[in-house]
């Protein structure tokens, strides 16, 4: 077609490709950063079942419906389920991981302030899903 220039289209295509590359790189980098578990993270086994959470610390102590951790330390959650799909969520610390029967999913966090936070199930798991809650207690380090 004479007299027709298509350079705006090429600029449009270049901008779209550049944006997609940038968005992809940012998301990829964020995922890489948050999936990097600190080597000294303490392991807590989180078990979801209808309709409560059980937490097992490295020393074998277990807690039901509440979890005590210490400020300034890193923790790695190994999230499992005994029955149906659940999702382990500590909203205030942006911790969210599915609990799937037959799988061990991991997520980590490092609380930086003393306080109490809600733990909840974020995957509809049956009649009392709405009340599958717990409390996270972040305390001062004991030693």
């Amino acid at each position, binding site marked *: 077609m004479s007299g027709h220039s298509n350079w705006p289209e090429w600029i449009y295509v270049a901008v779209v*490709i*550049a*944006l997609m*590359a*940038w*968005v*992809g*790189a*940012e*998301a*990829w*980098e*964020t995922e*890489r*950063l*948050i999936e*990097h578990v*600190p*080597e*000294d993270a303490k392991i807590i086994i989180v078990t979801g079942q209808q309709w409560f959470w059980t937490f097992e610390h490295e020393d074998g102590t277990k807690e039901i419906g509440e979890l005590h951790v210490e400020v*300034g*330390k*890193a923790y790695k959650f190994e999230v499992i389920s005994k029955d149906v799909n659940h999702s382990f969520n500590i909203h205030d*610390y*942006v*911790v969210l991981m599915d609990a799937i029967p037959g799988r061990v999913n991991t997520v*980590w*966090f*490092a609380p*930086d302030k003393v306080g109490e936070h809600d733990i909840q199930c974020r995957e509809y798991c049956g009649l009392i899903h709405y009340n599958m809650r717990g409390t996270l207690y972040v305390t001062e380090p004991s030693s």
Partner: protein
Amino acid sequence: MKFVFEFLLIMAVLVALPAADFAFAAGDEPGEYLDRRVVIWNLFYKMMTVAFIVGSVVSGTIIWQVWRFRESHPKAKPTSYEGTDW
């Protein structure tokens, strides 16, 4: 050839950005952990900024095109395949 060059350039950016950020990655020293909340919400706000800017540019372009190329626009011209009797 040009396509290959552009493709390689994009791939280079995709690899270089995370590699550059690696230098600033959080250490494993106790008490120096990465603040997941900051990283995750930061990504969210960046993506929302991009999404809203792209959304407004695209919808703005469409609205302008509809307005500019309507039949009743003062500068509207028939295309060759529409005939010359305007």
